[in-house]
């Protein structure tokens, strides 16, 4: 029945900084909102916390988060916003492709949460799906004890013990610092942060950050923490090999020196989760950091009518622009509904977004994935861990079988065909394939391994019970 299944004005996917801000903003502007988030608690990656009442530390904008969460609960209690935590969107379809509402099909994440609804319907979407760790293959990266930096941080935020371990944090970008200091606080001995890019990148950046005072304060704070924990910060120091037999024993730096460690955190930036934008047919582009991101206009609209995007979905940029973009998306939907929108607010948000994005762009330029990283791969280095595809096999698919693009690579050598469906190896396969064909990777290279027909795992039983909206009474 139609009353049983309302069509919302807007469905927001993701309750991180961008999605929270979009959902709250849209509800406050007077729209009917449903907010769907895989997490059990609001906050996304940045404001990840582990119980109902705690908040992330103030240094992480904890106050802003607390306010957004209070407004979320308030709108929910007023009945203007339906909040569905613990629900994953695995498919979005639009029965009438050129218009009409979207159907979002939902299930619980990782077989835990009972699902309250198996689908919701909405006339517009704001996609705020965030990002996950970008991983690069390296000889030995599959050894137990090697983790993605974001994974280490999630572990720390979940208060799991790492005390007594000898850790090396390596890769590139400022995100290595909170991971290193977090590890030290949790009792690990951090032998070094190995930053692959040049030193002056970071220092020059402190000047560049003047326009983003909060960020430069953060930088200074981390520098102090690094000093307090006596963590050496080594620049132009690339980990070229991870040593060990059954588990990690150490890392080799620049082909020479060995640091003995039993925990290696690798961070190479983030990869936005693009499956939902690609699923609805939104245009994408390659961002400065090499990631595939959704194209949006000055109102956060993607190229598909009725679909907006905010936060990391539109480019890795951190929590501050994500909040502003979410809000702007809400206002642009409100305006489309003929609701009053204060132009000063819009101007203020645009300025905040510009600032945040300029800062992010500077970071992306300072901390690129180092050129030539693919040269360190050996014949036997695994590139796709799920299907156990080695670099040598990719080379042969190129030289013997003629695979020139990632899609053909996938068809002929199977990278990205396994469990993670290319979430882990997609960026690397695009880069390796491009390098084997003597050209830089393009958005075209990234798309085939970023698109996923199902955004989350779903059982055949659930597929069999899928209801067609057009069939409903």
């Amino acid at each position, binding site marked *: 029945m139609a009353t049983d299944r309302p069509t919302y004005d807007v469905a927001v996917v993701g309750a991180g900084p961008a999605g929270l801000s979009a959902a709250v903003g849209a509800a406050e502007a007077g729209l009917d909102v449903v907010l769907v988030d895989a997490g059990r608690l609001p906050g996304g990656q940045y404001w990840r916390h582990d119980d109902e009442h705690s908040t992330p530390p103030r240094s992480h904008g904890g106050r802003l988060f607390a306010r957004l969460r209070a407004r979320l609960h308030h709108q929910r209690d007023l009945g203007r916003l339906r909040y569905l935590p613990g629900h994953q969107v695995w*498919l979005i*379809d639009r029965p009438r*492709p050129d218009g009409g509402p979207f*159907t979002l*099909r939902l299930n619980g994440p990782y077989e835990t949460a009972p699902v309250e609804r198996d689908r919701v319907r909405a006339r517009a979407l704001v996609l705020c799906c965030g990002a996950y760790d970008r991983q690069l293959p390296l000889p030995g990266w599959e050894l137990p004890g090697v983790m993605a930096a974001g994974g280490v941080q999630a572990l720390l935020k979940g208060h799991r013990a790492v005390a007594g371990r000898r850790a090396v944090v390596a890769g590139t970008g400022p995100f290595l610092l909170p991971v290193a200091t977090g590890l030290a606080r949790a009792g690990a001995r951090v032998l070094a942060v190995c930053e692959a890019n040049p030193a002056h990148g970071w220092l020059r950046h402190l000047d560049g950050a003047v326009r983003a005072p909060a960020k430069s304060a953060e930088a200074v704070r981390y520098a102090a923490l690094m000093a307090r924990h006596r963590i050496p910060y080594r620049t132009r120091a690339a980990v070229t090999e991870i040593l060990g037999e059954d588990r990690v024993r150490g890392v080799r730096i620049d082909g020479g020196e060995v640091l003995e460690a039993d925990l290696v955190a690798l961070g190479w930036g983030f990869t936005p989760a693009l499956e939902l934008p690609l699923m609805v*047919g939104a245009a994408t582009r390659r961002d400065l950091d090499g990631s595939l991101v959704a194209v949006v206009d000055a109102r956060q609209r993607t190229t598909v009518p009725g679909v907006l995007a905010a936060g990391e979905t539109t480019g890795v940029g951190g929590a501050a622009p994500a909040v502003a973009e979410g809000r702007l998306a809400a206002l642009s939907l409100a305006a489309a509904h003929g609701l009053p929108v204060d132009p000063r607010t819009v101007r203020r948000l645009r300025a905040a977004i510009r600032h945040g994005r300029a800062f992010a762009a500077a970071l992306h330029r300072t901390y690129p994935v180092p050129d030539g990283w693919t040269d360190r791969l050996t014949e036997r280095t695994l590139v796709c861990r799920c*299907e156990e595809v080695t670099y040598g096999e990719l*080379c042969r698919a*190129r*030289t*013997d*079988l*003629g*695979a*020139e*693009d*990632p*899609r*053909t690579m996938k*068809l*002929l050598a*199977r990278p990205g*065909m*396994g*469990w993670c*469906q290319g979430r882990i190896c997609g960026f690397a396969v695009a880069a390796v394939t491009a390098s*084997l*064909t*003597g*050209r830089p990777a*393009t958005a*075209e*290279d990234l*798309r*085939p391994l970023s698109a*996923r*027909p*199902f955004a989350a*795992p*779903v*059982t*055949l*039983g659930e*597929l*069999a*019970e*899928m209801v*067609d909206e057009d069939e409903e009474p």
Partner: protein
Amino acid sequence: MTPYGKGPIHQDLPRTADLVVIGAGVVGAAAAWFATLAGLRVVVVDRGAIAGGTSGAGEGNVLVSDKEPGPELELARYSRQVWGEDLGGYGGLWEFERKGGLVVASTPAALGALRTLAARQRARGVVVREVSGDELPALEPRLTREAAGGALYPQDAQVQPMLAAAHLLRLARQRGAVVRTRAEVVGFLRPGGRTGSPATPGGDTATPGGGMGAPAGDMGAPAGGMGAPGRDAGVPVTGVTTPHGTVSAPAVLNAAGTWAGAVAGLAGVGLPVLPRRGFVLVTEPLPPATVRHKVYAADYVDAVASSDAELQASPVVEGTGGGTVLIGSTRERVGFDRRPSPAAVRALARGAIGLFPMLASVRAMRVYAGFRPYCPDHLPVIGPDPRAPGLWHACGHEGAGIGLAAGTGKLIAQALTGEAPELDLTPFAPERFERGGADEPRGT
């Protein structure tokens, strides 16, 4: 052989060849291999990537079981033999597996119909063993216990089609063939130095060539329909034009699959090849031998032979070397729309669970779509085109192009080199649609 090598993609084309093959799908690859083996200098051009068309978007069943007696069954039997014998020594390269097909009937009535079909197939040389309901669990332990009975077809086999296409091309290259990707045929050389142009006006040929990795299905529409006889009709074809240059050749083979109608249109001849969409659902990896045969429901044969435009689905379930289970198959005529259709995906899941109830709790990893190249009479087009001498076709194999590729390739090579083909090609003649009456659904 020079390997494709690392570094930039080669785009230079030889000026001349004995045969130009348009299309690096499994059909073009098989034709290239057998023609090369027969001593011809072959150039293969594809506007996209190797196996980037339907050959990279389907399954790899090599079936005799699903065909009604008639020309397609004869071709299927012949082709199965070519896969197993001529190409048997290479089978490991493309995961050739004689796994056998098990057709399952859910009701006594369906079982009766299956038995009748099996008897007719047996009369045509198909090996088939009747299986009682009691015997099914021993053959397929996870199969539903509801089934009335079935039929086992030991000749049914499986290949990995992308690897088959890529390795057949590699083998051909080892013997001197040239393969060029991202080289779209945009016209034909005709005597008098004229480049052929499409008989049917419209954007088909104006579509830009394959972008890197773009699914071929999105690159341009088929000419469809018959079109009017073009002004070039009757004029010989003496080579092809691509953005990277021309290749002169006394013979050009149109192996452009679902897009073969548009290619024929470039030569001014009509060829009614149209897309019939199919989805395949892929599960998470399961323990080996969860599904042992290629298992499908008895009503599959009806769905294959149907000319209905509506969504048809009948379950086809098979395990792969990687442990994933592939679930086909839907058939619908909706043009080149590859967005996942909830109705089609649901039909696949329901059908598969109907055969294997344990699949209900198994997770799907992905679903993909492909476009079968079909002709109104559901028969492929194989042979020389008298309307444009020098132009040959090997296309329109619909949902059986993987299975039929090996035989098609060998027959084409025989005909090209003046040998009598081992199988009569008359039923597959390109000009049959001109005669009228051929666009009736096949079978009874």
